[in-house]
């Protein structure tokens, strides 16, 4: 029986005060707000990837098309957008690693490794790989 009637009451029982979730529920707690930012960050990631696909398409069309494309997106608003998308995607990645400690169960020598250690190892790897890639690509 997984379909209880949460609203109203049947005739055989005393009337119950029904619960109704307020539409602004996600504004009521810091953790709910951070959760919504994490969920919304997927939209930024999708838009960023669409832009990246456009960049690849321009590259396939030749040097002139790529140059024109980069001229179009390389202005002030393009840079601001990319900085914003980078910050939000980094937040998404950081919180994703934080969940890893909750989900992954790794044993070393028969002992469970604490979740916090898994989180920190993931985050350290994320930072180190990002820095290495930055120096390789620039």
């Amino acid at each position, binding site marked *: *029986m*997984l*379909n*209880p009637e*949460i609203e109203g*009451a049947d005739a055989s029982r*005393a*009337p*119950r*005060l*029904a*619960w109704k*979730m307020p539409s602004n*529920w*996600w504004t*009521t*707690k810091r*953790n*709910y707000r951070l*959760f919504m930012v994490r*969920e919304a960050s997927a939209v930024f990631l999708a838009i960023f990837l669409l832009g990246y696909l456009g960049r690849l398409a321009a590259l396939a069309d030749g040097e002139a098309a790529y140059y024109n494309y980069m001229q179009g997106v390389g202005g002030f608003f393009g840079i601001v957008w990319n900085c914003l998308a980078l910050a939000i995607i980094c937040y998404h990645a950081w919180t994703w690693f934080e*969940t890893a400690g*909750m*989900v992954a*169960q790794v044993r070393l020598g*028969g002992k*469970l490794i604490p*979740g916090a250690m898994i989180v920190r190892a993931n985050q350290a790897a994320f930072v180190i790989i990002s820095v290495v890639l930055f120096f390789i690509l620039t």
Partner: protein
Amino acid sequence: MTTTIERTVTVRVARYSPERPEEGKSYATYEVPMRPTWMVLDALNHIRWEIDPTLTYRHSCRMAVCGSCGMLLNGEPKLACNTFLDDYPNGLTVEALPNFPVLRDLVIDIEDFMDKLSAIKPWIVRDGVDDPSGGEYRQTPEERELYNHFSHCINCMICYAACPVYGLEPNFLGPAAVALGHRYQLDDRDQGNADREAVLTNEDGVWNCSFVGECSKACPKHVDPAAAIQRTKLNFVMGKLLTFVLPWRR
């Protein structure tokens, strides 16, 4: 002779009477002595014993074991017996746990939770009838460690009150039921995984969870139901993947 004036705190309590449902939810305000050793439950007992005997709420053990006195304290779901009144020097608002229908004042209807709890069979399921002359089923400390902290759940429903998914989708199986289902899935004495998995992974099961994580933050016994839900998802997917890659594996 000196007179000591006792500190007091204003406690605002949500009231609902099924005899007057048209009035809906209202609030009553009481002045309660602020004593450093008092829990919120002591304040509610003081109100009922000394001020207003009609105030209705559930409580029993007074030591965070029975899970009866879950309430919303200044917007946070907590156990009234496990929260100091002194934590609220500027006043306290006590309401029934959200996400549940209210029967009266601070008493919620737990029928939905009880149905979900029994659906996941939170007990050791064995194939057939065991012969007790075979002795007890022994476990190593490592085998027990796998499920130990999930077994600390006291069914207080605070995780359900903290879960916005349950508030929006009442059919969701919910954190505590999954945590207890997962606890028995990890118990090597149990043989009921197939039945339990069917409930845990159906359309009202773990897939509804969007991993807000508030259930684990709110849990007064540090059970971590969010981890149980995510691990159930992972175990299910890995099981299906292994069956696909290695079809001879059951």
